[in-house]
């Protein structure tokens, strides 16, 4: 807060006090945002005997792990599928994005001014408009139903957002640094390796988190391109929720398990996540 506004806030005395009333709506909204999390947690920790839809708001009698154990048992292979799909997808995407962003930010080749808008539009397309050819193509190259196939898809459809995020970041690298490197005789690779890569950590974190979350949370590509052995956790959870056999309390526990990796990333790296959202503020 600047000194000026501090003084003016002080002058306004009573208004300054009344401001604290504004915490009331904020706290009410906090409750609204936490309700789904609350229900997931308390339901998960109930024992099978005390689970009933009519008591869903009550706290559990103690900490029981029945629901989590059963949900984990059912989701384990799919949580694993998600993990081994998301990690390479995020890493490969970031490397490609960094190289593309560097080249586009530092060198205008003929036609490069068309590349950015075409990439940008590629970020927004509804994937329903490419999914039929994609499914046929994946089948033809023998990657349908496989995890490497899904990795490939996330990497390719991630190119626009990763490239543009790095592009935006590299545009802020001072020109003087690049000039200095050139005087020292550094070529393209040298400039990237010695100047851009060492300062890239923030952009890498943002893009890694972004790609990790969007690949982990994806449903459309997964449901079309994988089979029940290779389902990632979103598809498995949806199938679990759609079946009549699996009790709702296990579904709640399963939801928490499926949300946990991205939630943890958010809790521990939230600042970067927010920055990523802003950098990719164009993408939904």
């Amino acid at each position, binding site marked *: 807060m600047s000194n000026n506004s501090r003084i003016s806030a002080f002058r306004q005395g009573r208004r300054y006090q009344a401001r604290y009333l504004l915490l009331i709506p904020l706290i009410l909204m906090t409750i609204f*945002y936490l309700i789904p999390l609350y229900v997931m947690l308390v339901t998960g920790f109930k024992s099978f005997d005390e689970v009933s839809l009519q008591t869903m708001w009550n706290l559990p009698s103690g900490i029981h792990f029945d629901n989590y154990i059963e949900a984990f048992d059912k989701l384990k292979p799919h949580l694993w599928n998600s993990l081994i799909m998301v990690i390479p997808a995020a890493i490969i995407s970031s490397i*490609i994005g960094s190289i593309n962003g560097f080249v586009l930010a530092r060198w205008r*080749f003929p036609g490069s001014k068309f590349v950015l808008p075409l990439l940008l539009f*590629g970020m927004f397309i509804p994937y*329903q408009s490419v999914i*039929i050819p994609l*499914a046929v193509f994946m089948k033809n190259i023998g990657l349908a139903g496989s995890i490497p196939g899904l990795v490939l898809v996330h990497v390719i459809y991630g190119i626009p957002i990763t490239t543009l995020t790095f592009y935006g970041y590299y545009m802020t690298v001072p020109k003087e640094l690049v000039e200095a490197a050139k005087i020292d005789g550094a070529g393209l690779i040298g400039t990237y390796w010695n100047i851009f890569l060492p300062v890239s950590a923030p952009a890498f974190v943002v893009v890694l988190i972004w790609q990790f979350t969007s690949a982990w949370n994806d449903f459309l590509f997964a449901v079309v391109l994988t089979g029940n052995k290779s389902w990632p956790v979103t598809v498995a959870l949806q199938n679990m929720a759609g079946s009549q056999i699996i009790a709702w309390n296990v579904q709640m526990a399963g939801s928490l398990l499926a949300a946990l990796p991205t939630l943890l990333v958010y809790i521990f790296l939230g600042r970067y996540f927010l920055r990523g959202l802003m950098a990719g503020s164009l993408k939904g």
Partner: protein
Amino acid sequence: MFARKDKLFGFLLVLPSIIAVGIFVYGFIAWSVRVSFSDWKGLTPDYTFAGLRNYFNLFVDPRFHVDVRNTVIFTVVFVLGALAIGLSLAILLDQRLPGEAFFRSLFLFPMAISFIVTGVVWRWLMNPALSADRLSGFNLLFHNLGLDFLINQWHLTPNYGMAAIALPAIWQMSGYTMALYLGGLRAVPEELREAARVDGASEFQIYRRIILPLLWPVTLSAVIILGHISLKVFDLIIAVAGKQLPLDVPSIYMWQTTFDGLFYGRGASIGILLLISVAVLIIPYLYYSLRSEGEE
């Protein structure tokens, strides 16, 4: 600039990405258009030209009419709801209250969760059972709080069930809208507010007359981003309600008719119509923002 050898090398570095996006985005869109002009049914591709028949059939298809209506209801409730909550939260957080950073990250955390997880949880929160002994979820909460008049059938409400599906979407995206608005509010120079205060304007008048008009560009971006999400809405509905005709939208129709019904021609035409509707929203916006960026 770089030596010619370096330029060639740089071009070779980006070339695979350009080719990949060229094929997987633009090539596949063209391929989809071709499928949409065909009668392809069943497992074997059949590109026999059928003209615009698939599109004409959709325009007289009652299911597609339901889809369009549902998309409109969802879009209106979702976009207005997220804007209203997002703007209110941003204005509240702009008052520099204690705990601002905490509230800010709390309102944003739903962004980290998939629509599937959100949908599965909200499906139980919005349990439509009405009889007194079977009340659960929000209905039970309303009953316990003495707010019985709020008890409703949520997504099973005749004709307007789609509005209930927009609620979890608002829960998920209003924090993001808040972040957009907060960015806009923080960019309003403090001197402007000071000057208005000196002129005797109340805080309310300052927002109404000075700050809100300055936030129009943010609102425009938010409407475009939220609007294109609602055109594509898919997994959230599947997770809350499964595939039910009253809650059908183009993306679900596309998925079912293509991958369950094997009507590839019709599926492709729905995909292309979705693309056109998103393009109508996005292209003018991209054009405008790229142009103003170029002017800077």
